């Protein structure tokens, strides 16, 4: 299913921490299905010591961190959240490969006590693998609220592995979990796992498979696991075994497997039977209790009509919050902090007798660039926090459900909505977020369409320039431009879907997690990680570009009029003039390739005005018709270089990447020219 293989993957070296004298190192893997609170547990254990990178050779995020407890230093790896350990998705393969090949000292399996039966399924698979397992029985509070009574002692006895009840969001049971991990690693805690039984009908075949392959399975693969996976029809293990045994042996094996193609259902059925027995012994289930919170909220949130209303309100609230909280802080940063910093630097440099170019480089290039990066922080912080909150309480899956109808129309998946929505903050996380879409085709299309979503940088340009050209009507024009982008997104998606994919339907299977109270620590850490990665990746690019643009606008003559940048604008002017743009506006558009918000800064430099003065200068110099064409082009132009680089990374193909660049370039100019000639002013 997931065959997408990037050619180049960013490799970030992990920070290795040396154990203190006498400290013992343990390697712990954290496993669990989605929506069991695994990331909350991970955050509680590792806090700010987390490292976020990629799994080697994969574009799946890998989180690791460390935790000191007593005399132990634990290196904790957060495995991808998966429902099972088949070969059907990259995430599942990563999780099982890690345990098989790296053999962590202990695997911590987190399950949701409120959906115990289902979340134990993964545990049934984990018990086949070589590392010992501790069960973290999380969300005990939610289970109790719903009327479940779980006897932990019985569950532990029946499973034969340590079971720790937890409410990770309230930091309950975390210590006990660590004690159990250490106990298991040191062999102090008893460990006699009971495996699920396979159905009678398949027992002889499994036995036969084991006999046939005995001694032929290389380290580190466990024989029993290989045999079961073969019987399940696991594509990856089947290929592996083919390579390990000779032709005759494989003939025997495949003859055995023939006629048992449905074994996967029996094996899964056997696991659920095993789970059922455990649960029957250890859990008192609620009688028909009161209608649950999830059910009540979903009467509205997933309603075909009211669900859309709720979503529109939520979106509105997000942007209202982003701009009422974020924008004032942003202006304060720009006007007070950055401006006084620039003044200070400027007067110091003059005092020291520095040459004019050094002053320009410091004030306009470096401090200006830092200012641009900083000015993003308030808006991104609010946006990430609200998004994280909605994800944490369980609402985002509902939004994906409600949007699926519309997304399918464009050949997208309901889940495509989430990364596209993220795109309003920044296209970079949106492209990266498209990883949640398992279906390759929908993922490609989502990535391709992402640049149509106006990111906050383009919004900032919009917010700055629309009042200049349209005064009172700026708000309406801004909305119109955003809607125009979304309409084009829908039309292009629809066209691509029917042209390239013949309008074929996509599979859609998605969990709607139970609603629960948010965990602010988890959200806070998520915001922190996203911000710091923005600072590292986008921030450095923006700063570098700010310096380069300044240099191009300063040399060789020391003034803008004779600079390289102005010359480039003159060369391209004939094309721009078709859309009413002069050379300076063309250059502003081009520098937007490096970072969208540069458009304003470049205009400022080229028109020889600061941001304050720029508004009045532009108002006089540029007619509204050309201004409007410029805004349309800015909204549709090639995505910024940071976005292009992650698109390249996710698509794993230069051809597709250049297709994206060319597509947006042509579309942007075509739209600009069209608008300029049609605009009624």
């Amino acid at each position, binding site marked *: 299913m997931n065959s997408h293989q990037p050619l180049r993957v960013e490799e970030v070296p992990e920070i290795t921490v040396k154990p203190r004298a006498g400290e013992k190192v343990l390697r712990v893997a954290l496993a669990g299905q989605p929506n069991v609170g695994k990331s909350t547990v991970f955050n509680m254990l590792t806090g700010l010591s987390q490292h976020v990178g990629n799994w080697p050779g994969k574009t799946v995020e890998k989180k690791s961190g460390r935790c000191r407890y007593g005399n132990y230093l634990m290196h904790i790896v957060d495995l991808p959240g998966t429902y099972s350990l088949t070969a059907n998705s990259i995430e599942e393969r990563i999780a099982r490969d890690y345990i098989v090949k790296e053999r962590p000292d202990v695997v911590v399996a987190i399950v949701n006590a409120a959906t115990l039966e289902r979340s134990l399924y993964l545990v049934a698979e984990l018990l086949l693998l070589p590392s010992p397992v501790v069960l973290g029985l999380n969300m005990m509070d939610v289970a109790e609220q719903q009327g479940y009574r779980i006897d932990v002692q019985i569950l532990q006895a029946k499973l034969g592995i340590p079971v720790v009840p937890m409410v990770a969001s309230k930091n309950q049971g975390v210590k006990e979990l660590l004690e159990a991990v250490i106990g298991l690693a040191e062999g102090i805690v008893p460990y006699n796992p009971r495996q699920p039984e396979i159905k009678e009908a398949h027992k002889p075949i499994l036995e036969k498979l084991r006999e046939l392959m005995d001694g032929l399975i290389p380290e580190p693969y466990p024989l029993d696991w290989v045999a079961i996976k073969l019987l399940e029809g696991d594509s990856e293990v089947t290929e592996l075994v083919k390579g390990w045994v000779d032709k005759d042996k494989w003939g025997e094996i495949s003859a055995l497997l023939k006629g048992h193609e449905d074994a996967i*259902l029996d094996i899964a059925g056997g696991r*659920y039977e095993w789970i059922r027995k455990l649960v029957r012994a250890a859990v008192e289930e609620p009688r028909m209790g009161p209608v649950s919170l999830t059910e009540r909220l979903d009467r509205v949130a997933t309603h075909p009509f009211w669900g859309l209303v709720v979503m529109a309100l939520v979106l509105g609230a997000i942007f209202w919050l982003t701009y009422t909280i974020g924008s004032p802080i942003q202006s304060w940063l720009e006007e007070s902090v950055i401006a006084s910093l620039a003044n200070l630097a400027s007067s110091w440099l003059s005092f020291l007798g520095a040459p004019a170019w050094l002053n320009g480089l410091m004030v306009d290039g470096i401090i200006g660039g830092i200012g641009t990066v900083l000015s993003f922080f308030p808006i991104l912080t609010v946006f990430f926090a609200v998004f994280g909150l909605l994800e944490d309480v369980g609402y985002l899956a509902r939004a994906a459900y409600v949007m699926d109808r519309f997304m399918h129309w464009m050949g997208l998946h309901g889940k495509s909505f989430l990364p596209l929505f993220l795109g309003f903050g920044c296209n970079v996380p949106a492209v990266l977020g498209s990883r949640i879409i398992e279906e390759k085709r929908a993922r490609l299309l989502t990535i391709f369409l992402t640049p149509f979503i106006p990111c906050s940088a383009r919004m900032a340009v919009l917010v700055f320039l629309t009042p200049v050209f349209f005064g009172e009507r700026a708000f309406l024009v801004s909305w119109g431009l955003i809607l125009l982008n979304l309409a084009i997104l829908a039309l292009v998606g629809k066209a691509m879907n029917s042209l390239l994919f013949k309008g074929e339907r996509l599979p859609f*299977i998605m969990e*709607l997690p139970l609603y629960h109270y948010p965990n602010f620590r988890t959200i806070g850490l998520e915001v922190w990680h996203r911000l710091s990665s923005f600072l590292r990746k986008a921030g450095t690019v923006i700063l570098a570009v700010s310096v380069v643009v300044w240099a191009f606008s300063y040399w060789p003559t020391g003034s803008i009029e004779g600079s390289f940048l102005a010359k480039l604008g003159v060369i391209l002017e004939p094309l721009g003039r078709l859309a009413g743009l002069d050379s300076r506006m063309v250059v502003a558009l081009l520098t937007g390739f490096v970072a969208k918000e540069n458009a304003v800064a470049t205009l400022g430099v080229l028109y020889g005005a600061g941001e304050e003065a720029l508004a009045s200068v532009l108002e006089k110099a540029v007619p509204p018709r050309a201004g409007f064409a410029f805004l349309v082009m800015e909204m549709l132009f090639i995505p910024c270089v940071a976005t292009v680089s992650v698109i390249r990374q996710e698509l794993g193909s230069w051809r597709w990447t250049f297709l994206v660049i060319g597509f947006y370039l042509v579309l942007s100019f075509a739209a600009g020219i069209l608008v300029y000639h049609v605009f009624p002013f």
Partner: protein
Amino acid sequence: METANSLKTLVDLKAGEKAIVKELRGGRGFVARVASLGLIPGAEVEVIRNPGHGPIIIRVKGSYFALGRGEAAKVLVEDSA
């Protein structure tokens, strides 16, 4: 044993109706995937939402899932009790 009209798919159920999964019609990948969610023969399913177009919502073993109509049509069910 079964009359023809007792075999339906999940798509045929209205919101609030419960049924027992009888059979999964689909490739191995599909079967393995829904099985890991608890949707296996013998499991009880309740349809929570079926708006007539677009995906449906089901509840199985205490969890909620959205299923596309194509996927839901691959799950054959039988009225419970």
